[in-house]
């Protein structure tokens, strides 16, 4: 091991007690075929700490009831807990008001909400929407629906060989016809951290609103919507150590106010007659039907949890893991990393020329290592690099240097099997 690597390890160990943190996650004690679980599939979903599990359990055990509707004791308890979770989200991303925090079922719903409520209202024939070549399918397909319906055009910012967007090309795409820019903040398949602040600055010169897909961001670094000045931002609770089926769409109040509701139903109305319906105020206008109450409360607990550790510290820990892993993976013959952006998050996609990712995934599974193989819902990225799929190891706040070592050793074994 080089001196540099040792200093990286020391740095991690001195500032961050990962072993104590791991104690909070019961599932991490799992053994797979008598080997300890190495969970490196955090970009797909993260594990949940006991603190989140307890809160969700407690909700169903002692306050379950519907919100915003009942006059009774339990309903008030549940409503308070639900709205308290909204407050936590608001401070977590530093929104101006709770009216700007809409609970959704996840990133996907958030993006679809904007496509429907903003897009269908404001888009006309010939207008354009800009996304990038590294979007998750959830930030491609809703725009295709919309553009087909409105005879509008979808413009794609190209990416270079390292996995960075080509900024000059982006500048060429922006025009008076552009009605919205929707880009991923951190790529789930390449790990690239995009220059979203610069993108937003340019966009605002043309009065174009910007939606950020922050599914892979809020869980890895501090996010401040006021500072970013983004117009919309979407994320999922389950990637932030919270429950599945809950997510958040942040939107600037002025924009949300101007938009039509996404779905119709209970809770989103203020008055309904058969002739006319008036809509409820923000954020309820966008929360039709009974929400995922336990999910929202669980997400609030997850936010408390990561905040108690500190997003800056989590970011630093994961950055060290990334640096260490990137260095050590060089020891594995034939391994090529896809995605070498200058600013990268804790995601490593890799390929071998002669070993398919599926085979890598199966062999690693037998070593207790969970990675993802496939196209990661980013088929245009695979096409860009002319590969069918990659193997992807993605880090979370509980991963350790030792686990990276296990991964590297296991990959060396994979090579032996296939190159024998």
């Amino acid at each position: 091991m080089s001196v540099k690597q040792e200093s990286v390890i020391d740095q991690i160990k001195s500032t961050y007690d990962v072993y104590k943190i791991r104690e909070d996650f019961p599932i991490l004690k799992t053994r797979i075929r008598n080997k300890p679980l190495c969970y490196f599939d955090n970009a797909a979903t993260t594990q949940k700490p006991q603190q989140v599990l307890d809160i969700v359990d407690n909700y169903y055990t002692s306050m379950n009831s519907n919100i915003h509707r009942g006059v009774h004791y339990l309903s008030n308890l549940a409503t308070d807990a639900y709205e308290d979770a909204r407050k936590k989200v608001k401070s977590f991303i530093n929104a101006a008001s709770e009216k700007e925090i809409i609970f959704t079922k996840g990133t996907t719903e958030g993006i679809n909400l904007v496509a429907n409520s903003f897009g269908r209202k404001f888009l006309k024939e010939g207008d354009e929407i800009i996304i990038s070549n590294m979007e998750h399918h959830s930030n491609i397909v809703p725009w295709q629906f919309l553009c087909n319906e409105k005879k509008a055009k979808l413009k794609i910012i190209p990416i270079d060989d390292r996995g960075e967007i080509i900024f000059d090309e982006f500048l060429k795409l922006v025009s008076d016809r552009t009605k919205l820019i929707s880009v991923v903040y951190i790529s789930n398949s390449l790990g690239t951290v995009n220059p979203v602040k610069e993108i937003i600055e340019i966009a605002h010169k043309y009065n174009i609103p910007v939606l950020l897909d922050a599914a892979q961001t809020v869980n890895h670094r501090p996010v401040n919507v006021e500072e970013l000045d983004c117009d919309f931002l979407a994320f999922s609770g389950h990637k932030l150590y919270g429950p599945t089926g809950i997510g958040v769409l942040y939107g600037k109040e002025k924009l949300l106010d101007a938009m039509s509701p996404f779905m119709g139903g209970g809770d989103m109305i203020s008055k309904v007659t058969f002739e006319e319906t008036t809509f409820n105020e923000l954020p309820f206008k966008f929360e039709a039907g009974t929400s995922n109450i336990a999910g929202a409360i669980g997400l609030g607990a997850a936010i408390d949890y990561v905040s108690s550790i500190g997003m800056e510290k989590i970011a630093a820990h994961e950055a060290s893991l990334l640096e260490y892993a990137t260095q050590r993976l060089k020891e594995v013959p034939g391994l090529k990393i896809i995605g070498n952006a200058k600013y990268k998050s804790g995601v490593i996609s890799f390929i071998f020329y002669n070993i398919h990712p599926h085979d890598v995934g199966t062999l690693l599974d037998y070593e207790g290592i969970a990675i993802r193989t496939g196209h990661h819902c980013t088929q245009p990225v695979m096409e860009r690099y002319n590969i069918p799929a990659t193997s992807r190891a993605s880090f979370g706040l509980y991963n350790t240097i030792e686990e990276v070592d296990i991964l590297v050793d296991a990959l060396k074994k994979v090579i032996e099997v296939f190159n024998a």
Partner: protein
Amino acid sequence: MLDPELRDLYQEVILDHNKSPRNFKKLETANRTAEGYNPLCGDKIDIFIDVEDGVVKNISFQGSGCAISKASASLMSTIVKGKTVEEAKSLFEKFHNLITGKLDENASIEELGKLAVLAGVKEFPVRVKCASLAWHTMLTALKNENKTVTTE
């Protein structure tokens, strides 16, 4: 040391066919072709067949995929060559039963020949699609439907 279950899946024969697939080329004389695609893992395969009087005279394939799908395609190409279209179809039925664990314990697997090395797939349900992609594609080609099949 590989786990025995893994060793069953990745037998030497499979690793060998993965490394040096047989009939891995475009067949210029083909009168039947089809493209197969597994959207889940991005596996792609092109099958080329030369059928004459209901007999598979020659068969080849190209594409990219995991060791299981590549070896399965390679083995398939060696075994169906010279067989009638009907024989090829019934072979696939038997093979499919083998890899999904539905084959009768007492059933003779002689007819399957080398295909039997893929029996380990039955312990890995997600890999059944990998092992059967080439076969589905071949059947499509034999029906002379020149189109893309997917395993979905």
